[in-house]
């Protein structure tokens, strides 16, 4: 069994500045990490590998420094890594990004299962997983909280819903996106880091992937971001003084004024 894990490199914090002149989010100088949601995807793949001897490939689209995150994934337990990198990818919306990743996954070899995090911490669209499935023509289950059974050509999972969970089964290959509840990710080991240094990571540009210029970057992105703004500041910070009794009385009066009570 070969498992492909799609990861994204993101800034380690969501406390970012907006570069108004450039109309972009300024993440210069911020440490970059593997998207925390994707660490659950990677961990799940490594657990499957340990339990049944699968091969784990990680793939990412991004600038060259994304290599560091791919090496970290190798050090954590992945066997192969692939980087999709090209200036022409810049400005891709989630739909275009999924197209790029889909072409990369097709090129990187056969696969039985593709695992993604439920969304990225920065863009937070949660689109790439499902979109990838459609691009590849594969079935998909989102928000997986448990893999109940996985064998040749078959998977049964629990999917988190708004009020509980569902048990679903389907054929492989399949794409799944996972939620935090599925596992507790491990960290890269020192031995792994040493070993990861020696792994060669192929870097593929648009041409290597045979990508059509009309499907990537701004041209391949149906959506445009026209404005970036900080959230409206929250007024408030009103501290209610007094004893517990008085505080509760005041709060109840405030909630009544707000027609909550």
């Amino acid at each position, binding site marked *: 069994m070969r498992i492909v894990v799609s990861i994204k490199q993101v800034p380690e914090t*969501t*406390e*970012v500045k907006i570069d108004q002149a450039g109309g972009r*989010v300024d993440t210069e100088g911020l440490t970059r990490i593997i998207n*925390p949601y994707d660490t659950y995807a990677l961990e799940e793949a490594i657990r499957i590998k340990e339990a049944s001897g699968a091969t784990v490939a990680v793939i990412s689209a991004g600038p060259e420094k994304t290599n560091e995150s791919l090496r970290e994934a190798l050090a954590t337990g992945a066997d192969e890594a692939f980087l999709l990198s090209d200036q022409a990818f810049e400005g891709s919306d*989630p*739909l275009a990004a999924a197209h790029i990743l889909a072409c990369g996954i097709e090129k990187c070899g056969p696969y039985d299962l593709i695992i993604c995090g439920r969304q990225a*911490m*920065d*863009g*937070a*669209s*949660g*689109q*790439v997983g*499902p979109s990838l*499935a459609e*691009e590849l023509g594969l*079935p*998909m*289950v*989102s*928000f997986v*909280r448990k893999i109940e059974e996985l064998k040749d050509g078959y998977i049964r999972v629990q999917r*988190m*819903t*708004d*009020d*509980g969970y*569902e*048990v*679903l*089964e*389907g054929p492989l290959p399949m794409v799944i996106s996972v939620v*935090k509840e599925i596992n507790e990710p491990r960290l890269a080991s020192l031995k792994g880091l040493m070993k990861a240094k020696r792994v060669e990571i192929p870097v593929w540009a648009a041409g290597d992937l045979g990508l059509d210029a009309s499907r990537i970057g701004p041209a391949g*992105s*149906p*959506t*445009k*971001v*026209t*404005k*970036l*703004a*900080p*959230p409206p500041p*929250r007024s*408030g*910070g*009103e*501290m*209610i003084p007094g004893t*517990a009794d008085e*505080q509760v009385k005041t*709060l*109840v009066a405030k909630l*009544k004024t*707000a027609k*909550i*009570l």
Partner: protein
Amino acid sequence: MISKAEAKHIWVLAEQKKGKVANVALEAIGLARKLASASSQEVWAVLLGQDVGGLAEGLIQSGADVVLVVEHPKLDTFRDDPYVDVLAHLVENHKPAALLIGANSVGRSLAPRLATKLRAGLAADCIELSWDAGNLVAVRPMYGGNVLATVTCPEARPQMATLRPKASPRPVLDASRKGRVEKVDLGSLEIRDRVKLLESVETGGGEVKLEEADIIVSGGRGMGGPERFAVVKALADAFKGAMGASRAAVDAGWVPYAHQVGQTGKTVSPKVYIACGISGAIQHLAGMRSSEIIVAINKNPDAPIFKVATFGIAGDLFEVVPLLTEAVKKEMS
């Protein structure tokens, strides 16, 4: 691909489960009504399922002009495959200008697949939608809510958006509204159906869903242990609201993950969010900062949560919360 010139009307997926329309779908119909009325368009509700025709009238009363009813055994319960194929078929036949879907566990799975199949633009998890000169203008949070991006889709149609639960009010039913119900015959449409639903489990036991609750009472590290969450639960129950928790409380194993509010958990925007013993880490704020009123109860007067709280109570939550619970019970009775 659908051209801009021929696309018209605002569609809403009237997502239903077990014969009940999802609240977020009604909220989307209410919002679509406003956008459509201001731009001389119609609101079309798309109702997929099995034996669901009886729900059409309620959708018209909520603001729909047209209800497309599609009944098919494969649509009985939600799965991405059949929903994507049927919606894509309807969109290609009727060419709507926009399609709104609730940003819940159904919509956030379905919408990106559908957008990819249609080559349409999608703005995910929007908190605001408006209409400007033929374009849907969507505002969506990024970076844990620290950045609000305005997203448009200048050319591709339909313009798709998923709408965050409670971002828009639920419409008041208008029994005098008239509309048209169209039953759609799918004919020999090929519908993919690769994933089978074996079991559906509601773990909430009839509790209010976190994303849909008007009032949420959450506990954090300051709760000190699992059994002490009873205090938080009692206040949530008194409000007929839902119980939430911070990551610290979930990671400690005191409360199941389904209750987690914050960056790696759920994003909520209730009318009132009461944070008990939650210090207010940025990851937690990401999940609740858009609440209308935030009440913070914490023994540390310097806790960052007080900076975003509408009302702050510095004190012992085990003293304050039970008193508040009694007072709320009295007010609600």
